[in-house]
């Protein structure tokens, strides 16, 4: 993939939390329409990587490019207005807002596109039933739907998903990931951080494995073997 094709491109991306370095020179590219899964053990730097892409963790200006523009030092608000949205780890819904109000917050950046409340309610019908309920009164799976819907309301070109399956039952995880084709059908690109390797391989075209803040393995989802992934995951 050439730099010109890349929707997201990082070159030598490093990131720190205070004095502690979390990412050590990450090179990454995402093509339009692609679904890439990022896997790795706890503390591997997966979530930090997504935070660096969205401006929540600061990095060098040219270390991250989105649609060819450097965004490394940009504020999160500026990045989301350009079309990059995130479903954060742990959902992080606004507890004092209802389901509908949480969804409407996602539309704050006022980007035009196919996603609206009506369309979201078609994708996740339960949310229409619960629209007036406090968002945090919903089950874990329903809250995850709200978190995804909130990000979609920004009509992003790229959606970053951080551990969608965290704390959810397998049947709920399946229901959540069954919605992925509906997202990519419109040309949306996805980066999915996922601890469940089998889920990651099933939903993505390409897998990138992080290990201690570095990329330890990268390849087509249907070509990587368990042994390769295991070695890269644990660094053995």
């Amino acid at each position, binding site marked *: 993939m050439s730099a010109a094709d890349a929707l997201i491109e990082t070159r030598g991306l490093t990131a720190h939390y205070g004095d502690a370095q979390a990412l050590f020179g990450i090179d990454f590219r995402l093509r339009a329409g692609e679904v890439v899964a990022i896997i790795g053990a706890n503390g591997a730097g997966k979530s930090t990587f997504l935070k660096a892409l969205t401006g*929540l963790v600061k990095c060098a200006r040219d270390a991250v490019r989105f649609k060819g523009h450097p965004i490394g030092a940009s*504020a999160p*608000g500026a990045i*989301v207005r350009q079309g990059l949205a995130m479903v954060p780890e742990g959902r992080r819904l*606004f507890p*004092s*807002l209802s389901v509908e109000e949480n969804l409407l*917050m*996602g539309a*704050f950046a006022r980007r035009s596109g196919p996603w609206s409340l009506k369309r979201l309610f078609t994708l996740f019908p339960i949310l229409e039933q619960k629209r007036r309920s406090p968002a945090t009164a919903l089950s874990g799976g329903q809250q995850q739907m709200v978190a995804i819907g909130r990000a979609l309301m920004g009509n992003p070109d790229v959606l970053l998903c951080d551990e969608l399956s965290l704390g959810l039952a397998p049947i709920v995880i399946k229901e959540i990931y069954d919605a992925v084709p509906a997202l990519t059908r419109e040309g949306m690109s996805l980066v999915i951080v996922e601890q469940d390797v089998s889920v990651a391989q099933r939903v993505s075209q390409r897998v990138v494995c992080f290990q201690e803040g570095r990329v330890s393995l990268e390849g087509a989802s249907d070509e990587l073997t368990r042994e390769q992934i295991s070695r890269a995951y644990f660094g053995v």
Partner: protein
Amino acid sequence: MLDALIQGLLLGGLYALFALGLSLMFGVMRLTNTAQGDFIVLAGFVVIALAPLVARSTIVATLLTLPLAFGAGYALQRWVLNGTLGRDPLPSLVVTFGLSIVIQNALLEIFSADPRSLDSGGFSTRSLGLGGGLAVGALPLAIFALAALITAALQMLFDRTALGRAFRAVSDDREIAELMGLDARKVYALATAVAFVVIALGGALQAMRTTVAPSDGPLLLLFAFEAVIIGGMGSFWGTFTGAMVLGLAQQIGFRLDPGWGIWVGHLVFLAVLVLRPQGLWPRTRG
């Protein structure tokens, strides 16, 4: 005693205007504005200074002060107080305390220590008969009505508008709100701007109802703070009713003994703090 109850409720209306701005700023950004009382006094003096320039019309001077207060609140939050916000509450307390001292001394320098008041054109001496020998002052009744209206307006702003949603979102989770595209610094500035409009009204009405003096700020802050704590954090109607309780307590205390008014209010505040520290009507929405 009925008269004491009525007067207490009406006094509570003024205290509500003192307290609503404090409740708003704390609710949105967890900032305790220890200069709240001094800004109320400052607003009163601004109206007093403007009144001669507008044919001595108190109403016009008050209305002119409102957009000034909005702008001043926005600028103060955006370029001064935003820098104090963070996990540690101490910087904002220290800075607003510093502002309190600066305002008091500036007012002392410009206006001297003499209490001043605003001419309400005879409105403060008019009364409304309630029958049975009871009467209420027109101005305190108007202040009470205005306080109720502003409380309802603030609650509606928070519950029904996009701006209110933004206030609640940044209060809940600033980082995720910024991920949605909000600029938290501007949202905080708007919250303080709105708070300052209410502060300005409180200052003007205090100057009409009684007097304002440069050293009055700390006492007004105390009343505002007590009303917020009695009512409960995070609810405008809670703050309003907390102000009513405080006003009632002070009036009942005053009737028991002229020197007991404020003291009984403090006792009720302390009782709430000990027995129900979350306040009588803690955080509610709508």
